[in-house]
């Protein structure tokens, strides 16, 4: 399989100098790719370029060989699902949050079907993160982009979410995950991309 994503000499400017500068990397379509680097090196920013919550100030980002800016942005975001560090439940029940096909999806992410009728904001943080993954999977994405998906979780729910993320990658989904935890990167990922702090 070819590359799902490619960063070509990407630069993103912040308020005081570049956040990312001259970054290039390829992310294959198969398996789980971890992005690691020190805090402040722009890892989160790099993820946000993949679904165009942000755009680069220089260089380009490609999805399946085409600049992400050439796709319809709403379509791009359905294909490339980004899940943030802190789960964000929306108002309504868990089933409302996940939408159509919630039964199957809750099972896929390891949540009991009984939670479906509960208000989404009463879930534990670990459950909420699983629900957010189910909500993302409901869009039938080609790629799942995760920003430190376990950093807000306690140790026990962390291991469960890690197993889930690994199994999604094994099912053929492209998974890109930012982590600051070297253990997580080496144990979980098929490959690791390192980011260095931009020199301004």
């Amino acid at each position, binding site marked *: 399989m070819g590359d799902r994503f490619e960063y070509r000499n990407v630069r993103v400017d912040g308020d005081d100098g570049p956040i990312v500068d001259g970054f290039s990397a390829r992310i294959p379509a198969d398996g789980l790719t971890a992005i690691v680097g020190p805090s402040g090196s722009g890892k989160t920013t790099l993820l946000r370029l993949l679904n165009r*919550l*942000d*755009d680069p100030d220089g260089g380009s980002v490609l999805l399946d060989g085409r600049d992400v800016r050439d796709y319809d942005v709403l*379509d791009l975001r359905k294909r490339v*699902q980004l899940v*943030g560090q802190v789960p964000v439940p*929306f108002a309504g029940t868990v089933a409302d949050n996940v939408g159509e096909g919630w039964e199957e999806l809750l099972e896929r992410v390891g949540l009991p079907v009984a939670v479906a009728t509960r208000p989404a904001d009463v879930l534990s943080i670990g459950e909420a993160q699983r629900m957010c993954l189910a909500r993302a999977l409901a869009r039938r994405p080609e790629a799942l982009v995760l920003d430190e998906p376990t950093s807000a979780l306690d140790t026990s729910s962390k291991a469960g979410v890690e197993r889930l993320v690994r199994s999604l990658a094994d099912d053929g989904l492209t998974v890109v995950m930012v982590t600051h935890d070297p253990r997580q990167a080496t144990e979980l990922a098929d490959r690791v991309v390192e980011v260095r702090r931009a020199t301004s």
Partner: protein
Amino acid sequence: MNDLSGRIGFGEVALSLLLVAVAAAVSWRRKAGLEQDILVATFRSFAQLLAIGFVLEWLFGPGRGWLTPIVLAVMVATATLTSSVRGKRVPGARGVAAASVSVAAASTLGVLLALGIVPVEPRAAIPLGSMILSNAMNTASLVMARLRDDLASNRREVEARLSLGQTAAEAGAPWHRTALRTGMLPIVDNTKVVGLVALPGAMTGMLLAGASPASAIRLQLIVMYMLLAGNALAALVAGQLTLRRLFTRDHQLIRSLRRA
């Protein structure tokens, strides 16, 4: 007989300055430090109202009706500037404010004049215009500031919604709704309790000027309904345009909100 307006001369105004002295005395005794502000406010109100009194006297004179649209335009410009200063953290706030106060004033005043509910005269158009404009101005400021601040503080949820493939309008909808309500609620509440808590300005003015209560309330009802519609329109336009200014064409939050 019971017409107060003709009886008030500058002597009466001078006597009423005693009441200003009461306010100043309260401030002085309690060390509120507002004596100077009260003095300035007294002089300014005197000078400003005296000036506008002369201007209105002149504008209402025969053959000067053609000036009314110009007066209204000046009021629109002032309302726009005031509102855009308060909503300044919204890019293009001036355009948003201009559109919402103009739409509110033109449509409500337009309906009242076109249907012959009020006469097409400077004496009707200018005071009604000023009421609708000052209300629309407050509404536009409230809606702009509220929507911008809510999107900034709920950025995480807004971006989670965008990430799921929602459009900017869909992702901003919960806060758009709140901002509209914030803009419209004060006037809706006022309309509910009118006459119970306070006798509103237009009615009070007519009563003091010697009009019968029946005709005073008829005018007041028209004013309240005009303000309801005007505020709703100002809130609608301000909300819609502000939302558009806070997202890019590509359904991203604008940079100042992304990095907030």
